[in-house]
């Protein structure tokens, strides 16, 4: 393997959203293209609804499974609050690709209920804080696109597609597609590829105005 450009990314979301699958798709995309890759994963326990994160490091020379604070090139958050939860890892002006759909934790819901309040943390509240670190924030309505692809569970494929547009990403769009194909069950392949394509396209309606993307 020759000298490779590096790309460090924090993948995050809520248990049950398929973050591990997302990471496996990226890992296989790299493996397939002979690009160095390593991850540090926090699987947590098996309950759903907890916070999940995976550090994924492509190319480059670092050998630590965890990205140092302030050095990730991007955060990809399948749940927007979780992008803020791990914001210390992002470098200034780094890229944040995040889902629009906030999943308020049960604890927040219960607290507000007790105090008869309704002021949930909103997507806008989160973005306002993220902006202190970077202007490069690309929201994606992943659920809508996943539904369009015919399967609400393909949100993660939407994200893989969107990320594939990034010019600095070591694996090519084709590698990424192969990575996805390697990890999704056969019967859901078609929907996942559709979700991937939709995600890829949607990147050019937002993300690519902010950061450099590949030629369409």
């Amino acid at each position, binding site marked *: 393997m020759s000298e490779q450009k590096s790309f460090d990314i924090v993948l995050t979301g809520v248990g049950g959203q398929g973050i591990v699958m997302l990471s*496996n798709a990226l*890992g296989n995309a790299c493996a397939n293209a002979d690009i160095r890759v390593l991850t540090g994963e926090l699987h947590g326990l098996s*309950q*759903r609804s907890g916070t999940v994160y995976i550090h994924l490091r492509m190319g480059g020379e670092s050998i630590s*499974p965890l990205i140092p604070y302030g050095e990730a090139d991007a955060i990809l958050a399948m749940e927007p609050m979780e992008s*803020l939860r791990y914001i210390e890892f992002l470098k200034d002006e780094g890229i944040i690709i995040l889902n629009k759909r906030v999943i308020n934790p049960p604890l927040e819901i219960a607290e507000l209920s007790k105090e008869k309040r309704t002021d949930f*943390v909103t997507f806008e*509240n989160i973005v306002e804080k993220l902006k202190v670190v970077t202007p490069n924030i690309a929201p994606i309505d992943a659920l809508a696109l996943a539904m369009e692809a015919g399967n609400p569970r393909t949100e993660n494929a939407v994200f893989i597609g969107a990320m594939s547009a990034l010019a600095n990403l070591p694996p090519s769009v084709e590698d990424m597609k192969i990575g996805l194909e390697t*990890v999704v069950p056969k019967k859901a392949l078609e929907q996942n590829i559709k979700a991937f394509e939709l995600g890829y396209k949607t990147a050019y309606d937002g993300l690519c105005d902010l950061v450099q993307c590949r030629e369409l």
Partner: protein
Amino acid sequence: MTLDSVINTEPGKGFVMCNEAMVRGAIEADVKVVSFYPGAPTSEILDTFNSAQKYFDYKFSVATNEKVALETVAGASMGGFRALTAMKSVGLNVASDAFFSLGYTGIKGGLVLVVADDPHCHSSQSEEDGRLFGPNAYIPMLEPSNPAESREMVKAAFEISEKYGTIVLIRTTTRVNHQSGIITTGPIERKPFEKSQWAEVGKPYFTVGEIARQNKLNLLKKVKAMGEDFESSTFNIVTPGEGDVGIVASGVSYCYAVDACKKLGIKPHILKLGTTYPLPRKKIIEFLKPLKIVTAVEELSPYLEHNLKTIAKDTGLELTVFGKDSGHFSEAEEYNVPIVYKGIASALELKTTKDYESVLERAAGLKSILPERIPVFCAGCPHRATFWALKQAIRGRKIVFNNDIGCYSMAFFPPLNFSDSMLAMGASLGVSAGMSQVLKDDIICMVGDSTFFHAALPGLVNAVYHDRNITLFVLDNEVTAMTGQQTHPGTPQDRGMPQGKKKIIIEDVCKGIGVENITILDSYDVKNNVKPIKEALDHKGPSVVISRRSCALHGDRIKRRNKIPIVPNEVDKNACKKPHTCIRDFHCPAITFDTDDRASHIKSDICDGCGVCAKICPFGVIHPVGSESKTEEVEK
């Protein structure tokens, strides 16, 4: 990963987790018997061996606990076969009685034990340092840093094990087990499984008195020979640097040290130790000789540091050893590049350019708006229902609640904040026995079904024998849920999962032991469960309440497989009087409320239709989706 990287018989490349790489290594080494009890961060080793068993002829089993798992693979090894087990650090505490003896008796077929420590207590009760098991039991120990080494070391461990007739430890930490990367695999060439005959392979495995004393002397000889062997081990790697400063590290700390030095712009000599017991003494002396300063980078106890000091002193080296004793590193917490960067910089008095602290500070400020996302019971989790009924039943009573290890441990966290103790698997019974002798309160203890078989049985026998006035809850959710829904002796046989041949029935076990007061509940039948729980608490002497319902994750998977529809519930928004009974103190991840009118709302993609919220709703406005319209139709 894909299972393919583990089972493909041709050599190739694959993206795998260290846990999977170890399985691959073992399969390449022709392992024939594996047995485990699950525990993070090693559970994927069990799960991968489980998934791959249909492709190979090794014998796989989930044991009732780690001690039985170790003894199982020890027996296979005595019979001449290669065998492996893996467990978390606290698991080795359970297995350690057999482990120490095995060191003395020696083994026959290659025997490997993977033990995973958990700095930061991500999923464990303590930051135990499993490395101390090596020298304490005179058992050799290898420490991988990444997936490639994980595979290679497991293979090498089998060779070492057979060469010296000793069990071999592979010691990891969470950040090793759960690290993925690309490995190059070797060929899989396996001999067909054929049983052996004791007369041909057997020898005595016995250790007591004079024999034990002799065993010990042999053990010391073995360790000496292995130490010499490890002098030339390719797992101990020197990366020459500049000047008279060095670093000694192992495991994932080595990775952090390498990256941190790059960031500091320094090139110290680095010794990466892969054989951390016995240490390659001569190699270390050789490495230390030209140095003035050496820094030990290791998580948890100053194990390498103290060894370096001893070696330096014995050899008369004029060397300063930095590490934890010198205050540059902590014995607590999990390391990362910033921590190691700071530690090395302060030890070597280097100027730093990276200000990781201000990054953290800014982030902390930004994050202050975030509500915590602590672990909660899943949608449909029967434990939530059991706790609801239990909390009703104890109203007005003075009780102590001794919790145990499993998903139900989470009662400790908000919203329940309900637990007075939680020590170790099965411990709630012993603790309760002690408390029942000194406290006036009603004493309640609780175990899961897996914990019941793992370590609660001796405690229950003890409670019956001494007629302790305690109430034991057994939460029977059919699987070992918290570690990934593995099977256990009480798992029903119709689950299409590879498992043992006979289901052990918990109430029969209790009866057999002599428990006279046994109550069996359907966890979901919340309201009707309150009274029987009260009666069990009133009973004088030991009583057992078995609360039974499948783990929601497991149950839903079975439903999907059998094409049984999962019908979520919905709130009749217009009828909802907003008492939020389904929200407060219930904390189901599927239930929230609408901001416009504060009516409760159920997220249909998360709800698994357990219907417990419908049962506790004081106004009865929660129904399965579509059920109301159906009744209307019937009426028409």
